[in-house]
């Protein structure tokens, strides 16, 4: 599996606090990479840097071998799609169908009907996004990403606040995107869901990344168990 998106030697300081010192991660085509770590370790920051939304103090971001650090519009045009956790990408004044019209006008038609059906949001397509509940909103955002058919999806905490059934739906959709060749990166603390969907795990700790390998290797890592999962050694 080849690396589609790569963030290398990335560092970022906010108000004198080094959130990231030297982080590295790759998003591989056809794989789901889980970015995990305690609160404040820089998962969201690293995703935003990878999407170009934040410029790092040092380090770079490459998409398909081309350096595009801090260039969000170009990264998005070339196939990076970011679903942030602290804001929504859907405009409250427009319906999901109108968002999808725009995506299709920009990038060509995706399999809209199948995507809406798969995510269970077909009946919400004509509602204004401002009226959707949290879980509906999350699935609606994901449907926009799926119709876009990105090369790389950066989904920050896609399972947050979702009931198990919706989390199952989102999990299957993420796996489906990876199966179609998309490089998927997810973060989150819902370890059951996150580890279940992941092919490989990257642990963010002390400002840097630790590649823990495949899911089974990650859960056997004693340090990861002790410091993050909270299991006894």
């Amino acid at each position, binding site marked *: 599996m080849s690396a589609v998106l790569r963030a290398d030697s990335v560092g970022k300081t906010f108000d004198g606090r080094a959130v990231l010192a030297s982080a590295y991660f790759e998003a591989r085509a056809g794989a789901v990479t889980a970015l995990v770590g305690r609160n404040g370790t820089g998962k969201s920051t690293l995703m935003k840097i990878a999407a170009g*939304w934040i410029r790092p103090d040092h380090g770079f971001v490459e998409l398909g071998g081309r350096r595009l650090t801090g260039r*969000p*519009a*170009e990264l*998005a*045009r*070339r196939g990076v*799609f*970011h679903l*942030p956790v602290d*804001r*929504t*990408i*859907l*405009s*409250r*004044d*427009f319906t999901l169908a*109108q*968002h999808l*019209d*725009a*995506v299709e*006008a*920009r*990038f060509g038609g995706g399999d809209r009907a199948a995507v809406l059906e798969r995510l269970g949001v077909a009946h919400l397509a004509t509602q204004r996004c401002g009226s959707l509940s949290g879980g509906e909103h999350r699935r609606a955002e994901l449907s*926009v990403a799926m119709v*876009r058919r990105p090369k790389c999806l950066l989904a920050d905490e896609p399972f947050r606040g979702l009931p198990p059934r919706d989390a199952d739906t989102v999990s299957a959709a993420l796996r489906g995107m990876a199966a179609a060749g998309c490089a998927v990166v997810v973060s989150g603390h819902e370890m059951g869901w996150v580890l279940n969907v992941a092919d490989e795990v990257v642990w963010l700790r002390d400002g840097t990344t630790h590649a823990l390998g495949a899911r089974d290797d990650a859960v056997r890592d004693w340090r990861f168990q002790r410091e993050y999962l909270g299991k006894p050694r």
Partner: protein
Amino acid sequence: MGMIFLPHFTSSIVARSLVSWAFVRALVTVGSSALEGALRLAPPDHPLRIAPVAVLAVLAIVAVLGRVSARRRNEDLFLLSLGYGRARLFATMLVPITLAELAIGIAVRL
């Protein structure tokens, strides 16, 4: 750097931009004329004529209002997700009102 052409979104951005422009332009026009009256300056030859610097101020105010509105509605992030950065958003807001200002400029000369 061109405008954004997307169904639903472009018309909404342009419509809001034109409404903001009409409001700000009216305020600046009335304000300019009141200021000229207070300073006993010669009135302009046409009531819609304002100083070039005032036109630039109108454009700047409309751009700021449009940016705030786009952020409040999350349009900025959606457009960014489609590969349209801030410059394209500003172009979409400012091209129509620049054309409107040019139309006024031509009309007051006739």
